[in-house]
């Protein structure tokens, strides 16, 4: 009986077989986006998977070019006022994929819904650079007081809270994308499925969205710059296993593996780095605007002592860690802000300065009035993950070797971990931070004010410094970019001198691509643009 059932099932499955073969003449790029995109409504998107797909399907006022600089996109001309607070965008004549005309209203509508106090948009704070945006979201001011005006169908005027040198970079980000007002008002769930209602304005449009399995996007002939788009189709699989992805790549079922859509399996990286014969298995590395560091709870004994904090930081040999533990191209970090276009990375102290660390540690013990034997066991927390564990073990060992202290490693499920950190129930905690835009502010701003339990925030270290706040405030209104950079650098140096955080490494992204794939723009923010990609 089971046998016949089994045979019947086989017959069913063969009948259901729908796997399309790849035709050689067509430009089809096959990628793995790792998971089902949580949403394809740009207003609700918060994760990188959704952002990757949205960047294929949509276009904002600007688009990031291959030189990492924002270029006019839906906006044809951008006028910036003298005080750098008012941006006037003159839009091109562009259309939605269903033929509707795209107007300035579509931008205003998208931004207003995001800032509507009743609309569930996690990333609403990205719009807070716009005048009154925060007050509108808080419900203190009406939507009409938002600093965005539609002057006519093709002109959008945006007033900012303060001069924001990175604003045109923000407008290339999904949260700032337009939404087809006519459709979204008729059906709030327009973005749930592929079909007639899913309209976009970017280089590709959504053909098929088979949830948790595959997305197929095809060239959008209604796109204003369609002649620059060479790919006919993008096939996006959703395989959330890095090893399987790698195998599929090796077997020629994918054209790309690893960053930024996914990751390369860490255990394969050392092998891959060694091999030189096969072009398609050569890892390409590029810097990520991301830093890996340990947060310290400066309110707690003994980490309330600056010299103890510094000695912990100096005793770490980052070079060893990136060379022998992580092995994926990371760079030792002795500052908070990673290398970015227009920002030379600082070197705030010497890596692995064990002599100085020992010296400072003894001074710290003296200030605390204790001996080494009386120094308490420290607790180092991280979220459960093999890579974090390996780094923590290495640092535990280095601290034991250099300072002679005992460190206990504890790990938690991701959300439990975050809850512990934000309630300051920790001593030393691992953290990674990826920039939202190419500006040091993206890294420095989180440490401006210490968290208070009421409002929350990102600075769980308990550290706050009046000079730090003043540097950041001054930088905010500084129009001269050189002076601004100088102020930000001073802030960074102060932060590292006070050591509420111990930087460990600046991340690098690694990927493999088939030699016939060209024209993919990668950004250190983990964003990727396939608009001009082609196969040859």
């Amino acid at each position, binding site marked *: 009986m089971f046998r016949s059932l089994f045979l019947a*099932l086989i017959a069913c499955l063969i009948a259901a077989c729908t796997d399309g073969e790849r035709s050689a003449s067509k430009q089809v790029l096959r990628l793995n986006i790792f998971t089902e995109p949580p949403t394809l409504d740009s207003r609700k998107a918060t994760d990188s998977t959704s952002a990757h797909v949205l960047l294929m399907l949509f276009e904002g006022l600007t688009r990031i070019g291959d030189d990492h600089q924002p270029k006019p996109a839906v906006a044809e001309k951008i006028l910036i006022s003298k005080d750098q607070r008012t941006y006037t965008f003159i839009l091109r004549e562009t259309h939605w994929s269903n033929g509707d005309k795209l107007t300035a209203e579509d931008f205003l509508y998208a931004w207003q819904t995001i800032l509507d106090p009743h609309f569930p948009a996690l990333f609403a704070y990205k719009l807070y650079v716009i005048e009154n945006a925060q007050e509108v979201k808080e419900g203190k001011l009406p939507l009409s007081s938002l600093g965005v005006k539609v002057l006519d169908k093709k002109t959008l005027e945006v007033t900012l809270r303060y001069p924001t040198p990175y604003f045109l970079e923000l407008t290339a980000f999904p949260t700032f994308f337009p939404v087809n007002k006519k459709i979204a008002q008729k059906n709030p769930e327009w973005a749930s499925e592929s079909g007639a209602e899913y309209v976009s304005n970017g280089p590709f449009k959504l053909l098929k969205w088979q949830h948790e399995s595959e997305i197929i996007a095809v060239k959008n002939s209604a796109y204003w710059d369609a002649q620059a788009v060479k790919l006919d189709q993008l096939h996006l699989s959703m395989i959330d296993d890095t090893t399987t992805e790698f195998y599929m790549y090796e077997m020629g079922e994918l054209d790309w593996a690893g960053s930024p859509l996914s990751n390369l399996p860490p255990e394969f990286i050392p092998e891959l780095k060694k091999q030189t014969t096969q072009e398609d298995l050569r890892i390409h590395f590029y810097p990520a605007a991301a830093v890996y560091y340990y947060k310290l709870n400066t309110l707690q004994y003994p980490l309330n002592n600056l010299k103890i904090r510094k000695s912990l930081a100096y005793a770490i040999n980052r070079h060893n860690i990136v060379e022998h533990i992580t092995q994926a191209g990371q760079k030792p970090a002795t500052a908070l802000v990673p290398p970015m276009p227009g920002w030379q990375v600082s070197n705030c102290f010497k890596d692995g300065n064990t002599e100085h660390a020992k010296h400072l540690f003894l001074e710290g013990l003296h200030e605390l009035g204790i001996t080494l034997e009386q120094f308490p066991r420290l607790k180092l927390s991280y979220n459960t993950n093999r890579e974090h564990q390996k780094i923590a073990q290495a640092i535990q060992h280095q601290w034991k070797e250099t300072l002679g202290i005992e460190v206990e490693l504890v790990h938690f499920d991701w959300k439990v971990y*975050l809850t512990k950190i934000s309630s300051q129930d920790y001593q030393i905690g691992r953290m990674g931070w990826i920039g939202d835009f190419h500006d040091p502010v993206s890294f420095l701003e989180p440490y401006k004010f210490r968290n208070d339990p009421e409002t929350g925030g990102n600075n769980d270290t308990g550290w706050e410094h009046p000079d730090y706040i003043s540097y950041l405030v001054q930088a905010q209104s500084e129009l001269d970019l050189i002076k601004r950079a100088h102020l930000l650098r001073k802030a960074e140096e102060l932060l590292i001198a006070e050591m509420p955080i111990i930087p460990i490494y600046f991340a690098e992204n690694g990927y493999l691509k088939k030699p016939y794939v060209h024209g993919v723009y990668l950004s250190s923010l983990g964003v990727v643009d396939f608009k001009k990609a082609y196969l040859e």
Partner: protein
Amino acid sequence: MIRYIVKRFLANIFALWVIATITFFLMKAIPGDPFTQEKALPKEILQSLYEHYKLNDPWYIQYGNYLQSIARWDLGPSFKYKSRTVNDIISSGFPISAILGFEALALALFFGIILGSCAALKHNQWQDYTAMVIAVIGISVPSFILAASLQYVLSIKLDLLPVARWGTFKQSIMPAIALAALPTAFIARLTRANMVEVLSMDYIKTARSKGLSDIVVIIKHGLRNALLPVVTYIGMLAANILTGSFIIEKIFGIPGLGQWFINSIINRDYTVIMGVTVFYSMILLAAIFVIDLCYAWIDPRIKIEGMKKR
């Protein structure tokens, strides 16, 4: 019989309520919520999210809403996957997991019973030892190791089967084998142990002395009794295997239901946690119920209350 079914049905409803209640309170007790993330959110945004998803309501209102949504089987949208409702997730994921599960179940039963019967017939001979070595390997090798090895050998080295994904029969072969290994081994051991016992019974000797062949004795007289414990095991197994395996679905990129059991908890995706847990319980309770009915059919000595004597 009808009285029995109604009674069991009511008992199952009660069991479901208990499960839903425990799940609800356990779920609320774990730290973190769907919006806990690395970059802390401003207060007003969190508030608007809580309000939108009705997380600001007192617990008894939330609890009442959950029970209602389960009763109406309208489980609401996922917190994380905003374009998906829990009903969608179950109705698209379950058939896939179930097809794969059936394949694995069929494999496990077929090979498990054959392996076990052979071992019992050739008790303490080399066939027995070989079968049991296979069974021990099946039990002790974790499915993800088996899955990765199958992938490596059959796809990468021999290029016989596709590495992953779902849609064709070929793509289902490796995941089905990986899923079937453990239950095959378990069924083989269960069958063997019982068969050895049954074969020493008097009625088997009688059957043999009547001049019946080995095959007929085994199939007509032996298996029927030896399989009772296997049937018990199948109830649990079916519920587990039909609702999908997290690890196998992850490795083979299969869009089944199994991944949601783990991912929903990692994401604190409250509606999905409730939905898939209750759904799994329903399948499990149904499987146990069916198995209980099967007992009576297989073993005439077991009588179900209210059922007429056969």
